[in-house]
Each structure stands twice: as structure tokens, then as C-alpha cells.
């Protein structure tokens, strides 16, 4: 699998990361090396094998729909670097 700097740019954008030119170059090489190693999986026949996301058969875990106490708003907002008394604050996102 050939990894190009443009592919690294694309996944960086999806990941909301901005790499410096030197890191972009380094990451291109490293990802190519890591993915080349992962190609070993192509040597194993998985035709007809079901993908397994949960290792144990877990059924839906439900609880009764009972109102429970939630967290205190002020306590939750305390960890934000920008908030007023009611909500988290962010730069304007829609004009």
C-alpha cells in the first residue's frame, strides 16, 4: 500500500489534526511501513468468516425508564475553559 502525503493530508483533516511539514513527511513513511506490515492479513483466507465486533454474545442491556438524578450543571461546566453559568461557549459556528 503506497501512502502519499496527500492521503496523510486527507486523514489529518478528517481527524482534525494539522501536521507540520516535517511530521507529515515522517508520518507518511511510518504509516506506509505500518500498513505494509498489516498486509500480512491478506495471506489469511477470511471468505465466509463473519466480522466479530463483540467477542461475547451480548444482548441489549435495558433498564426501566425511571428518572434519575443527573449531574450538577455548575460542576460539569467547571471543567470547561470557556463557559457561562448555563452552557459551554465556542466561537461562532454559523453565520
Amino acid at each position, binding site marked *: 500500500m503506497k501512502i502519499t502525503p496527500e492521503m496523510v493530508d486527507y486523514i489529518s483533516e478528517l481527524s482534525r489534526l494539522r501536521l507540520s511539514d516535517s511530521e507529515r513527511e515522517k508520518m507518511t513513511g511510518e504509516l506506509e511501513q*505500518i500498513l505494509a506490515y498489516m498486509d500480512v492479513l491478506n495471506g489469511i483466507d477470511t471468505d465466509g468468516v463473519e466480522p466479530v465486533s463483540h467477542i461475547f454474545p451480548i444482548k441489549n442491556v435495558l433498564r426501566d425508564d425511571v428518572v434519575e438524578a443527573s449531574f450538577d450543571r455548575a460542576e460539569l461546566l467547571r471543567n*470547561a475553559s470557556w463557559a457561562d453559568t448555563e452552557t459551554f461557549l465556542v466561537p461562532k459556528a454559523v453565520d
Partner: protein
Amino acid sequence: MKELLDLTALQLGAAIKKGEVSIEEATRAALEAVEANQKLNSFITRTGEQALEQAKALQVNAKTAASPLYGVPMAIKDNICTKGVKTTCASKILGDFAPPYDATVTERLATAGAVSLGKLNMDEFAMGSTTETSFYGPTRNPWDTERVPGGSSGGAAAAVASRSCWYAIGSDTGGSIRQPASYCGVTGVKGTYGAVSRYGLIAYASSLDQIGPLARDAADCAAVLDTICGQDPRDGTSLAFQGSLLDGLTGDVRGLKLGIPADCFGDGLDAEVRRAVLSVAGALKARGAELVEFSFPVMRYVVPTYYILAAAEASSNLSRFDGVKYGWRAEDFEDLTDLYCKTRTQGFGAEVRRRILLGTFVLSSGYYDAYYKKALQVKGLVKEAFDEAFCKCDLMLTPVAPTTAPRLGESLSDPLQMYLSDIYTVSVNLAGLPGLSMPCGFDAAGMPVGAQLIGPALAEPRVLNAAYAFQLDTSWHKRSPAGKEAHG
């Protein structure tokens, strides 16, 4: 005071119950040890004052307490939420985050009367095998401070090994309890997936993460697991796992079929490590276990499968860190996207950025089937391979890592090489099985070697009992770095 620190957690718990030692005395001894071992950098946050207050408050019920670990000081890996106590995941991006809630594990430990000394260093977001990717600087191995303690629960392993606390709570996504336990000469257990609630564990790869103990021996690990295991309505993947592990330790392994997968003892394994690990087979055989050898070719595929799945889940889990609701936030941003990008780029370290990018790639359109879906299919084959193996044997014996602890700086220069060193541990997470690491010898440089015991799902009693049997006959687990010279 040294003698007090040399007790196991259960011995200390018993001494506290009998009134031979006060909880405050034990806590002060631990805090002094933490101070004396500061150069190891095992702690990110120390909560000494709170610990002493807790110790005094707990003393009232010391004689009537139910838990065998009541009053025993311990410490918690810094990716497990502790209400009001800074929890960083060893990352810049979490800043001074003080969780508004306790993890279920933290709650259960508090209910059992544990005294917390603070929060332990780790690889950033548990991504790494050396504890060198921590924003708070690397932890050092107490057996040789020029070497790494392993990772990602390196602070936990170093703290237990250096006798700075009686046990520690770590987490294991691909070996992060077992490998540092091996490098530092302590015993560590990752339970069956779901045995311990993950509520309040900051997620790395949710389908693989498990919380577990690192301690001086198998009996201590059993007691800690008894305390923290069991179903939790706040973690839908938690199992109705009863525990009672401590009571099940008999040391009787007669008739136990111990599997030796040949593919785990082949090329790439250090000769001294091989010899030490195989000595476990000899010791258990002498107690009446039967040895079964077989091939286990699926080993070839476990590292790529693990890294695809773990990176994919990490890229999704870590998207929540954006500088808005908690943690550190970059300055001088132009708009919302710029805020996200600057915070994440400057807030995450290089290894975390690498895994996020790798995970994003394997999940991206056009590559999803070739990598992510393929890895999920191979995960199914890994599970089948273990199912077949456990038709032939009751437990498997393998190394924990191919070598003893490497020197600081040796691993990070080559990420792929570092990933490959996880070969013996990651398969256990992929299959959701219980795995234990215990000291089984030392190499010529005096560094500890660990052996891994793997059991079928929910066979924790069997895994712990075999380790307990081995530790009845050997004293590797009793050695401490302070006595290294004396042992030669």
C-alpha cells in the same frame, strides 16, 4: 518501616484488622516510600493529605471491616476517573480535568476501605509499551532506572515493585497491565472482558479495554479482583462475574492440562526469557499438572489485527477531545474548526496522533473493508483458535514479552518494532480472555522475567490458582529492587 512495606496487601490487611498496624502508620510508610522513590516518576498526582485523612476516618471500623484489603494503601492509573482528583491520561489535552464522578472501580475500592495515594503515570491515553509517551515524562524501572518499566501501566508496575504502595489499579488494552508487571517483577491480571466495569475508564479501545490489579502476588490480585469485579448497570458489557477468587486459591493443580503453544516459543524470543518461562511448566508439572504441546499458528496475525482494531476505536473515542467541555484548550483560534485542530494537534503527543491517523485511515472510505473489516474477521479466527486450544488444555503458558525491559529511548524510535513486542499479550484482548503475568526468573542483567497464564473466558479462578501454586514453590515474586545486589 521497611518490613511493613515488604508485607503483601493481604498480610497488611490482616495486621490492620488485628490492630498490629494502624492504617495511618501504613499510609505514612507508603507516603515516605513514594517520596523516596520520586526519581522513578511513577505518580502524576499525589494525594497524600487526603490519604492521611482517609486513613484516620477508616481506622474506626478497622476491626469489623469485611474486606481483607480494608485500610491498605494503593494507587490508581491516571486514566481511571477519581471524583475531584485530577485525571489526565498522561496527556496535555486533559489539562487539569477533575472528573465530576468516580469510576465504578474507584467507588468499589472506596467502599472496601482502600486508601488512595494518588494517580499513576502511564503512556499517553494508554498508547505505548514503555510509559515514555507520557506528557509528564517517563517512569523509570525500579530494577534499573536506565530502563523502561513497560507500559502503558508503567507507573502502576513501578510503584508496586518499588514498594511505594501495596497494589495498584491498571488497565489493559493489549498488554498494558501484564507487560509492565513482567518488566517490573510484579503480578498483574487482566480479567475476562466484562469481568470489571469500564465505567469511568477513559476509553482507548472500548472492545479491548479492561481494568485490573497489579500487586505483589497472585493472592493479592485475587483479593483486588474480588473487590472490583461484577456487573454494573453503567457498563452494558459488564458480566455477572461473582469473584470469590481469593477463597478459591488452593494450590492444587493436579490433573490440570497446561498448554504450551509452540508458536509462542519460537524465533524472536530471548533465550533467557524462554528458559525462565518454561520453568513454570516444570514447577506446575511437579505439582501434578500435565503438559500439552501444540501449534498455534494464528499468532502470526494477532499484532496487525490488534493494531488495526485498537487504532480504529481510538480514532473514534478520542474525537471527543476538542477543547470545549473539559481539559486544555489552544489559544489564538480563528473559528470553531481552527479551535478543534489547534487544540488536538498541540494537545496530543506524537504516538497518539499516529494512532488516530492510522485508525482514521483504516476506517476511511475505500480502505474500510481491506483493513477494518478484515481485522474483525481475523479476530473471529483468533477466538476460534483459542476455543480449539482450550479443547486440548485448561490453561496456556506463554511469555509476556520477547525480552526483559529495554533501555529508555530504545523503543520509541521505531514504532512498528514497539508494536511487534506486544505479540504475546494482544491476542488475549482480542479473544476477551483472562491473562495473568507473574515473575518467573531474572536475566543475567538482573532484570525480572514474566510468564503469562491464559485461561478460557471466566476461568479467572483457574488462572489465579495456577499462579498461586507456582508462587507457593518459588520466591521470584518476593524479590524487591532494594535487594537486587544481595541476590547477585
